[in-house]
C-alpha cells in the first residue's frame, strides 16, 4: 500500500509563513495531545474524585499495556512503509499457544514465554519472507496470515478454550496447570503499585524508542519507508530492514498475547478481537503527538494512554459501553485532522 505512509517526509511547509503566530500554532499543534490529556485528567478528577486515585491510574495503564505493546510493533512496520494486519491474530494464537504449552505439555513459565516469543518471531519471519522474497503486497500477505492463524489456533483443541483439566480431542485429560510464576506477568504489582504489564510496556517503549529514534538502524527504517529505492542505492539492505520490522512486530504481538494469557489465566478462543484496530489506532493517533506527522513510538504509547484515559473516565461517569468505539473513532479522526488538516499538502 502506498497510501498510508506518503506523509513520512516531514516537510516544513510553514517555513515561509514567518511570525510568532505561526510558531505558536506549530507549538500548539505539536503539544495538542498533551494539553488535551491534561485537560481530560483534570476534568475527570473534578467530575469523579475516585478517578485521580493512584490505583485507578495504574489500572488505566494496565488496561492499555497490551494495545501499547502491539502499537509499538505497528509503529515499526509503518516506519518501513509496511503494514501488519496479522498482529491481532498473532496475539490471540499466542494466548492459545501459551495455554497449550503449560496445560497440555506441562511446561514452566520461562520455557513457555520463550516458546511463545519464538512463535511470534517465526510468524513475523514468515510474513517478511512473503513480503520481501516473494514480493506479495504487505496487506495481502499479513491478511492471509491473519486468516491462517485465526483458524489454526483452534485446531489443537478442536475449537475449545484451554483451561486446567481440558479434555483433548483424543479423549485424554490434560494434566498441566498454569504456572503461578507465569500468572505473575499479568497479575503482580511491583512494589505493590506498578503492575508488571505496565513495566513491560515501559521497557518495550524505551527499547523501541531508542532503536527507532537514536540509532542508525532506526533512521534506515524510516528511510526505507520514505524511499526504499534511494535507501537501497545508499547501500542499506532494505530487505533486512523490512524483515527486522516484521519480526519485531510479530514478537511484540506475541508478548501482548503472553500478557493477556497471564491476566486471564486461560486460553480463551475469542481473545484478541479488537486488538488489531486498537493498536493501529494508537499508532495513528501517535502521528499527531509532538507534531511529527510520521509513525513514532512515543506518540503511539501516548495515543494508547490517551484513549485509555478517555475510556476509563467515561466509564466512571457511567457512559454506556457502546460509546467506546465512537470515542476511539472520534479521537482517531480528530488526531488525523490535527495532523494533516492544518497543512494543505497536495493530497490525493
Amino acid at each position: 500500500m502506498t497510501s498510508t505512509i506518503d506523509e513520512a517526509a516531514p516537510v516544513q511547509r510553514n517555513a515561509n509563513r514567518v511570525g510568532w503566530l505561526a510558531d505558536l500554532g506549530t507549538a500548539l499543534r505539536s503539544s495538542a495531545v498533551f494539553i488535551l490529556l491534561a485537560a481530560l485528567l483534570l476534568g475527570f478528577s473534578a467530575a469523579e474524585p475516585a478517578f485521580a486515585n493512584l490505583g485507578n491510574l495504574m489500572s488505566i495503564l494496565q488496561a492499555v499495556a497490551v494495545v501499547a505493546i502491539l502499537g509499538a510493533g505497528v509503529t515499526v512496520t509503518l516506519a518501513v512503509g509496511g503494514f501488519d494486519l496479522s498482529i491481532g491474530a498473532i496475539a490471540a494464537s499466542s494466548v492459545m499457544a501459551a495455554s497449550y504449552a503449560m496445560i497440555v505439555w506441562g511446561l514452566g513459565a520461562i520455557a513457555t514465554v520463550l516458546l511463545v516469543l519464538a512463535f511470534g518471531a517465526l510468524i513475523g519471519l514468515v510474513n517478511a519472507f512473503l513480503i520481501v522474497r516473494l514480493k506479495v503486497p504487505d496487506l495481502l500477505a499479513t491478511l492471509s496470515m491473519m486468516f491462517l492463524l485465526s483458524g489454526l489456533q483452534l485446531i489443537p483443541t478442536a475449537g475449545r478454550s484451554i483451561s486446567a483439566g481440558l479434555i483433548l480431542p483424543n479423549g485424554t485429560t490434560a494434566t498441566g496447570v498454569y504456572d503461578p510464576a507465569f500468572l505473575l506477568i499479568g497479575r503482580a504489582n511491583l512494589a505493590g503499585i506498578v503492575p508488571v504489564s505496565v513495566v513491560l510496556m515501559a521497557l518495550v517503549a524505551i527499547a523501541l524508542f531508542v532503536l527507532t529514534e537514536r540509532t542508525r538502524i532506526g533512521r534506515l527504517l524510516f528511510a526505507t519507508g520514505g524511499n526504499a529505492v534511494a535507501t537501497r542505492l545508499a547501500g542499506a539492505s532494505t530487505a533486512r530492514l523490512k524483515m527486522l520490522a516484521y519480526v519485531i512486530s510479530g514478537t511484540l504481538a506475541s508478548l501482548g498475547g503472553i500478557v493477556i494469557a497471564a491476566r486471564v489465566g486461560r486460553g480463551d478462543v475469542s481473545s484478541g478481537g479488537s486488538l488489531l484496530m486498537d493498536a493501529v489506532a494508537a499508532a495513528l493517533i501517535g502521528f499527531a503527538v509532538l507534531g511529527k506527522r510520521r509513525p513514532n513510538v512515543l506518540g503511539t504509547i501516548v495515543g494508547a494512554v490517551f484513549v485509555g484515559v478517555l475510556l476509563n473516565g467515561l466509564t466512571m461517569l457511567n457512559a454506556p459501553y457502546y460509546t467506546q468505539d465512537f470515542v476511539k473513532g472520534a479521537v482517531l479522526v480528530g488526531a488525523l485532522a490535527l495532523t494533516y488538516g492544518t497543512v494543505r499538502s497536495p493530497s490525493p
Partner: protein
Amino acid sequence: MTLQTSAIEPSVPRALIGVVVDNALVLALVTVFAIFSFATPTFLTIANLQSILVNNFTLLAIAAIAMTSAVSVGGIDLSVGTAIDFASFAFVSLVLAGQPVAIAALAGLGAGAAVGAFNAVLISGIGISPFLATLGTLFIGRSIQQLLTNGGNPVYLPPSGIPETFRFLGRGAIGGIPVPLIITAIIIVAATVILTRARFGRVALAIGIQPSVVRYSGIAARIHVAMAFILAGLIAAVAGLILSATVTVYIPSSGSAFLLNAIGATFIGTTLSRLGRPNIPGTVLGVLLLGIVANGLLLTGLNFYWQQVGTGLLIFAVLALSFITRRKASA
C-alpha cells in the same frame, strides 16, 4: 508490476509460463473447481453451483466491487461494512415504519452514499490518507449503530408485516434467475463500463497509479477521489439492501464480516491479473475463488475453522505461485 509478455522470446517453455502468468486467476479457479468436484460428490451439482452463486457470491461480489472503486484511486475503504450496515438499518427501519419499499430502498442507498461522502470529506477535503480516514469511519459507524439500537439490538421485521416487494428483492426470481444475482450482474457490468470505458474510470485508475501526473495534467484529482469513495459507499449500500431483504432483519455491524474478504478478493484480482491494477473482472474472479473454496470446504465436512485456514492457505498458494512464475517469466 507491468508484464512485458511480448518481449519474451517465443520458446515453448517461456511461452507456456507466459500463458500461465497471464491467466493465473482463471487457472487457479479451474484447479480449485476440479479439486472439489473430485473430492466431494455434491460439489458439482446444479443445486450446489446455484447455491454458490447466491450464497457465496452475490453480496461479497458487490462489497468487493465497492472496495475496487476505492482501491482504483490508490486508496482502500475499511468502511464498506459500515456503508452496508447503514443502508440496511435505514432500509429495514423505514419498512418497519410502514414506508413504501421504494422510498426505504432509496433512503438506504442514500445512507450508504452518506458514509462514502463522509470518507470523501476526510480524504479529499481534509487530506487524511484513505486507510486512516476509513478506519475512523469504521469505529464511529460501529458505535453510531450501537447508539441507534440501544447497544446492538437487531431490528426485526414481523413475519406478517413484510411487503411482497421487500421479500422479492432478497428471495425472488425473474425467469428462474434469483433477483440478487441479477442485481449483482448489473452492478458488475456497470462498474466494468465505468472503470474501463468512462472518463471517470480512466482518471481514477491514473490517480491510483501516478497521482502527481494527474494533478499536473490539470485534472481535479480530489474530486475524482471523492467520487470514487462516494461510489464505493453507494455500491456497498446495494449489498446492504439485498442482505436485509434476504434475512429480513438488521443486525448491527454485520456488514464488517465482508470487509476482509472484500479486500482479499480485490487484491487477488489486482495481483493475479495481467493488468496488475485494480479491475472488475479480476475482483469478480477473486470473489468466485473465495466463494468456491468456502463452499467446497464446507461440503468436505471439515470443521468450520478449517474454512479460515483454507482461505488463508489459498491466498498464500495462489500468490506465491503467481509471484514465482512471474519472476521466471521476466527473468
